[in-house]
């Protein structure tokens, strides 16, 4: 299929008034979420899943939700630079140098370079998505159940090791996610699992309830711990245009950030957070003046901000071509598609070209919208930070509560939601990230099905996963990464122990 013909068709879908409006709404809402600390894109998308059902158009809803995801990457930098609080997780490193720049009265330059870097990288990411996704989808058509099984295992493994927190905790969360997804009727034997006679549990937990509790409610509870709002570092934004020297210092950082972002975004478990951290480390290493990092180096803002946007665009590649969500936000979008009866995967481009190309085309438009929203209008978003949490908190809860209730018009799901919120809150306190749990919860039924199908194909021989070329390669990679990572961890621990005894 011709890429240009597809893209042209996509633009004709994205440019309809309705889709254009939702693209704008998504981008604006994403920026807002990015600006507001304590509410990330994954939480917001989960809050809006019930709204999405009402749209009755998978293409429109994904255009909307995608806008929230990449819009949040733009907005996140604003809070990092002005308040030294990451608006969302992928902007953590922007706090370091962005804040230092703001202290020196160069907040405007920092905001501008973040927005421009985001735009460049976002666009690079979408161009990459446009040209890489179709051939990858075609390749993925050769995948059968064993390949999917191997791919999902490998994806979950990478998600654990790249998530940044402890791999042991990450793996525990994966197993817990699998366990939670087992609740309900077994799809093959029809036997009830973990229902304990409760009728409402027969259909299992709804992932919307789970995600809203783990992301939405637990974030509200965490924010409530702190009394009083955050303080502005500076209210003066200053000149919004970078100087010639700023350009010279940051242009290669933007280019490198875009590429780093693009490639980390494709890897399962990668995504915006990892991309921005990698880019920061890389810029620091490549810089002629590494001592400036931490004291207001503009490359330390440009690189990571470009990287998180590049990654947010390219993480749509595995979703749209393989049907594998590679981070929590994408998992929410995956879920939104599934709920509307669309299975993301290699068949998407052929069966639903409107979704595939419409979403891609909308991302080109969305990036332009976001550049306008974030550069001249940045002052507007800063006002948003004045909304007290006494209003934001209950609004988030009212949304989530209604979202749960409207799933089946019953109060039981609100109780489940509250329970997951409490569990998620305690997990957060202990340093367990909810991301891998949600990913495992969504992938577990697919893993279970592909495992059982594979074993049917091979008449019960698990050798099938190792003898087929693609799944064999993936399994070999799985073992390689696992063993390699264990080896690195053990060596690191030994070195630490040795350091302690000395």
């Amino acid at each position, binding site marked *: 299929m011709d890429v240009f013909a597809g893209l042209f068709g996509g633009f004709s879908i994205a440019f309809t008034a309705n889709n254009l409006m939702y693209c704008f709404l998504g981008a604006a809402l994403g920026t807002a979420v990015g600006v507001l600390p304590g509410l990330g894109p994954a939480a917001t998308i989960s809050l809006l899943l*019930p*709204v999405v059902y*009402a749209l009755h158009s998978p293409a429109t809803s994904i255009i909307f939700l995608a806008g929230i995801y990449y819009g949040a990457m733009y907005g996140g930098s604003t809070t990092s630079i002005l308040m030294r609080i990451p608006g969302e997780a992928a902007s953590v490193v922007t706090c370091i140098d962005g804040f230092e720049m703001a202290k020196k009265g160069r907040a405007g330059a920092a905001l501008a370079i973040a927005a421009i870097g985001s735009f460049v990288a976002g666009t690079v990411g979408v161009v990459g998505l446009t040209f890489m996704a179709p051939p990858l989808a075609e390749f993925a058509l050769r995948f059968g159940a064993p390949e999917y099984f191997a791919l999902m295992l490998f994806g979950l493994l990478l998600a654990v090791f790249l998530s940044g927190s402890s791999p*042991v*905790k990450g*793996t*525990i969360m994966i*197993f*817990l996610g*699998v*366990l939670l997804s*087992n609740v309900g009727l*077994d799809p*093959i*034997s029809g*036997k009830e*699992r*973990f229902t304990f006679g409760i009728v409402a549990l027969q259909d299992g937990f709804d992932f919307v309830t789970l995600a809203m509790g783990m992301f939405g*409610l637990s974030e*509200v*509870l*965490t924010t*409530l*711990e702190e*009394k009083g709002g955050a303080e502005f570092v500076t209210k003066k934004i200053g000149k919004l245009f970078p100087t010639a020297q700023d350009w010279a210092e940051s242009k290669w950082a933007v280019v490198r950030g875009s590429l780093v972002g693009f490639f980390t975004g494709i890897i399962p478990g990668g995504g915006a957070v990892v991309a921005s951290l990698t880019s920061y480390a890389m810029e620091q290493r490549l810089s002629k003046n590494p001592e400036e990092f931490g004291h207001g180096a503009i490359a330390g803002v440009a690189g990571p901000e470009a990287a998180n946007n590049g990654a947010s665009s390219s993480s749509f590649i595995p979703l749209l071509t393989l049907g594998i969500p590679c981070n929590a936000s994408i998992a929410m979008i995956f879920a939104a598609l599934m709920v509307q009866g669309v299975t993301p995967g290699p068949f998407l481009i052929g069966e639903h070209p409107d979704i595939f190309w419409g979403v891609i085309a909308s991302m080109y438009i969305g990036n332009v919208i976001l550049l306008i929203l974030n550069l001249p209008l940045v002052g507007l978003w800063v006002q948003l930070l004045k909304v*007290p949490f*006494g*209003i934001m*908190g*209950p*609004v988030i*809860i*009212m949304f989530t*509560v*209604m979202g749960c*209730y*409207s799933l089946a*018009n019953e*109060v039981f799901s*609100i*109780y489940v939601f*509250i329970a997951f*919120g*409490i569990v998620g*809150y*305690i997990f957060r*306190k*202990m*340093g367990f990230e909810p991301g891998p749990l949600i990913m495992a919860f969504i992938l*577990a039924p697919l893993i*279970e099905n592909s*495992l*059982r199908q594979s*074993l049917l194909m091979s*008449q*019960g*021989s*698990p050798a099938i996963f190792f003898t087929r070329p693609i799944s064999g390669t993936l399994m070999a990679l799985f073992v390689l990464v696992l063993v390699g990572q264990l080896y690195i961890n053990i060596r690191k*621990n030994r070195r630490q122990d040795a350091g302690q005894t000395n």
Partner: protein
Amino acid sequence: MTIQERRAGLFLICLGLASAYYGMFQLKIGTIGQPGPGAFPFISGAGIVILCLAWIIANPVPAGACQALWEKGQLVRPVIAVAVTTAYAVLMEPLGYVLSTLVFLAAWQVFIEREKWKKTAMIAIIGTAAMYFLFVYLLSVALPEGLLEDLFL
């Protein structure tokens, strides 16, 4: 590792053991070639047990380390928020959406934000009206009806 982490680990071990037992004896695991309904509960339960054991054994709690998970008073507002939200869920069907939302918003402002009654009333009324408008007119969600809806709408 903190004491709390060890407790969490021990709790998860119990959970893992229970689910592995449940998968093995109640649901039947099946064979490698033909996994039964209990296979995944067993695998994930066993996985949790093994990982938590390794985690606890590899990271002993340093002697004298006693750091509270919550600082003093830090837990108050989250606990009230959970209580208020639970009350909201309990009251939703008996009172209907409008009345229960009014109560929820007022309770939040009074107990969590410690606002004065005037501001509380204002936030509760405006907030409820806005949410009602949003859900009913923009999103056409079916809301539980109660006393106020019967009287006025």
